[in-house]
């Protein structure tokens, strides 16, 4: 007979989760509070209530265009980083190639260097080879810094997978593609999912590469926020963030209604 989890520990767990929640959400509450402020300052608690900063943001063509660009870019990056990083992780995991450990470290290297060094280097190279920067330059740059996340999360999941599943499939005559699709891919799925999520967020919030790889009409949302701050540091930047939070939570609720998030979360 298994003894139940001690009640004291259950209480401790609840307290722990509550404290963590306060810690994680505290600054976000501040951001939402600031966005509702009547006054022009970024200050908390807000002075007066008003939706005028939301009005300002939603009627600003610059913010909407930047948001749309960031969204498209993040989706492209999620796709490319997941494909490239996932495939690389599978290959590294199998250890059939020489220098697997070195490869793993190599794929982590874009995270170790300060992004500004990479941004300047990329801008120099791109200008010398292709001239003006473009969405493609941003896409490639973001993929480079997002793929390592996918590699890491996928490798972590694969490390615990059953190494004999693929062997069994082979014995039963499954071809390479079928084995990849039916055995390896499902094994990777949680890692790929987590990696894709990180990739999306990273690209959507990336400000340094986007700051240097830009030209007119190629301004992402974080860069737009950054550019707004110096001369107009008003709560509209908080309103943008609150909208992002709302959209995310809304999206999760919608997915839950349609598919049921339990399925997604329990894979």
């Amino acid at each position: 007979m298994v003894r139940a989890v001690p009640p004291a520990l259950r209480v401790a767990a609840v307290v722990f989760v509550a404290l963590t929640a306060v810690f994680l959400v505290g600054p976000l509450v501040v951001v939402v509070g600031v966005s509702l402020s009547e006054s022009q300052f970024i200050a908390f608690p807000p002075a007066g209530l008003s939706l005028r900063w939301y009005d300002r943001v939603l009627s600003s063509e610059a913010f909407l265009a930047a948001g749309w660009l960031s969204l498209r870019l993040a989706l492209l990056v999620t796709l490319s980083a997941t494909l490239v990083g996932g495939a690389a992780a599978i290959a590294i995991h199998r250890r059939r190639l020489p220098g697997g450990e070195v490869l793993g470290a190599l794929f982590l290297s874009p995270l170790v260097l300060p992004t500004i060094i990479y941004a300047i280097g990329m801008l120099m190279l791109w200008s010398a080879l292709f001239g003006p920067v473009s969405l493609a330059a941003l896409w490639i740059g973001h993929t480079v810094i997002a793929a390592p996340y996918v590699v890491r999360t996928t490798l972590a999941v694969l490390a615990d997978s059953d190494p004999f599943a693929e062997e069994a499939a082979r014995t039963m005559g499954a071809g390479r593609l079928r084995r990849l699709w039916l055995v390896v891919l499902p094994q990777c799925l949680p890692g790929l999912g987590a990696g894709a999520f990180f990739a999306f967020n990273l690209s959507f919030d990336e400000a340094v590469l986007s700051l240097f790889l830009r030209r007119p009409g190629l301004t992402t949302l974080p860069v737009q926020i950054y550019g707004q701050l110096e001369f107009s540091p008003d709560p509209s930047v908080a309103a943008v963030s609150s909208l992002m939070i709302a959209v995310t939570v809304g999206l999760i609720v919608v997915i839950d209604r349609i598919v049921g998030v339990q399925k997604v979360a329990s894979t």
Partner: protein
Amino acid sequence: MRNTVLLSVSAAAALAAAAASAQTITINSFGGRYEEAHRKCVIAPFEAATGAKVQIVTAYSADAFAQLRAQAAAPQFDVIHFSGGQEILGAKEGLLAPIDAASLANAADLVEVARPNLAGGQGPAYSIVALGLVYNSQAIPAPPTAWADLARPEYAGNLVLTDMSNTYGLQGFLMLNQVLGGDMTNIQPGLDAVKTMLDGGAVVVSTSPEIMQEFAQNEAWVAPYSSDYAFTLREAGLPVVFARGAEGTPAVFITANLVANRPNAELALKFIDREISPEAQVCFAGEMRYAPTNLKAELTGAVAEDTPYGAEALGSLLRFDPTVIEANRAAWVEAWNRTIAR
């Protein structure tokens, strides 16, 4: 025969006109309220007058310079604006093109210091930012009147200094250093004073929004900073006053520079010429309280009270030699970092 010549000439003229109307130039602007003023005072009239299109990249001086240098192989800016003296290094590295003063109709009306080296590639200054003492008139017990007042011990706990990585921070520091007996070859008196202020509780910030935060939320009393930002804070509703220090008012120049290796030099020069015109500068003074560099610019009313203009007033502004700053910047920043490090 003559007809065909005429025809082809007029066709060529039509083509040229079409090409001109389709022309675009790319510039950087500084975002927020500044960019709105830039649009209103320079860009919109310029587009209306020439039929050309101006594309804007919102980039502060430091970021814009890094981009210019990295893109040397294929620059994207036609006109680039700097407030931190970056034009000196840009001209030295050949990133900026020399300007023939004769190609700018308004160049002759500029105060001398606003066009120190056009032929060498340093573009003209079109705005001057005055530095002084920004203070909260409601919170401060006794308002400062001189730069030396910043060292008053009773201010220290509510004093906001700006990091030297910020142009205004650097210039404000040099001024403080000067009134305390230092000069451009010896910044130790300034560093010693800063050390004392920090020990007394002063904070160091590095960006303008942080200054706003300090005034709006954290009981800041006084900060050595710029007239344009003081105006921004006042417009936002804070009881902030800008006072010129008794020992003098350091000036930061915002310059418009012609980028080398771009096809549209002629149009870009027209744009720069528009920026140094009296109309554009009067407009900028009204929107942002920038001092005009064009001696023909006449200010009136509240704007004239806030903003120095004309030969005499501009002559009284202090300017620390930008070439000396450029030569010493790295060493000064290091000494500063050492002084303020916890």
